[in-house]
């Protein structure tokens, strides 16, 4: 039954990868890669049980952390064009005019 879950996850990962390749905007690609990462976390966890080695869960946990940090970093880079800024965007139209 672990094999069925693994197969379903692989199909879902292929679909997410197709969306990441198709685009059309960069936000579609970021969303697809984030979703792909979540499915990878699940795949590593299920694969650990499939091969009878649940120690893989540590890798899965670290992958979840890295996936989140990577998504936020890419989005910050897209928003500011720089990872070192303080992170303030203009909120109102007056601030935009300045």
């Amino acid at each position, binding site marked *: 039954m672990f094999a069925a879950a693994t197969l*379903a996850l692989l199909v879902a990962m292929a679909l997410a990868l197709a969306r990441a390749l198709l685009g059309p905007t960069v936000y579609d690609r970021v969303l697809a890669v984030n979703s792909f990462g979540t*499915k990878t976390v699940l795949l590593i966890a299920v694969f650990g049980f499939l091969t009878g080695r*649940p120690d893989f869960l540590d890798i899965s946990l670290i992958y979840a952390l890295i996936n989140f940090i990577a998504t936020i970093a890419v*989005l910050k880079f897209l928003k500011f064009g720089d990872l070192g800024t303080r992170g303030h965007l203009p909120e109102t139209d007056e601030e935009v005019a300045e």
Partner: protein
Amino acid sequence: MEILIDIASWALLVSGGAFCVIGGLGLLRLPDVYARMHAAGITDTLGAGLILAGLMLQGGLTLVTAKLFLILVFLLYTSPTSTYALANAAYRRGLAPLLGGGTPANKDGDSSKP
């Protein structure tokens, strides 16, 4: 008793896998970014939740289950955060959501004006 837990765990694993595939299909087929976020949400909540619950039943009361629970809690906290950041970044950049009738809304949310 053992067989009952196995059956419950298999049901959870298979339905979680099915929800993952549904989320993947939505990611591929829905019309714009904001709609696709909705599909990605299915994978992050129901797909991950059911699969991890199925694995937890297999693990029993051990450290394995604690780790699985930690992964589940972490996914449930991070996936709304990254979805919010993505939607916020896309909207601030001026990517208008598709409204009913297939016309993209302008920045004020009024679909009658282009």
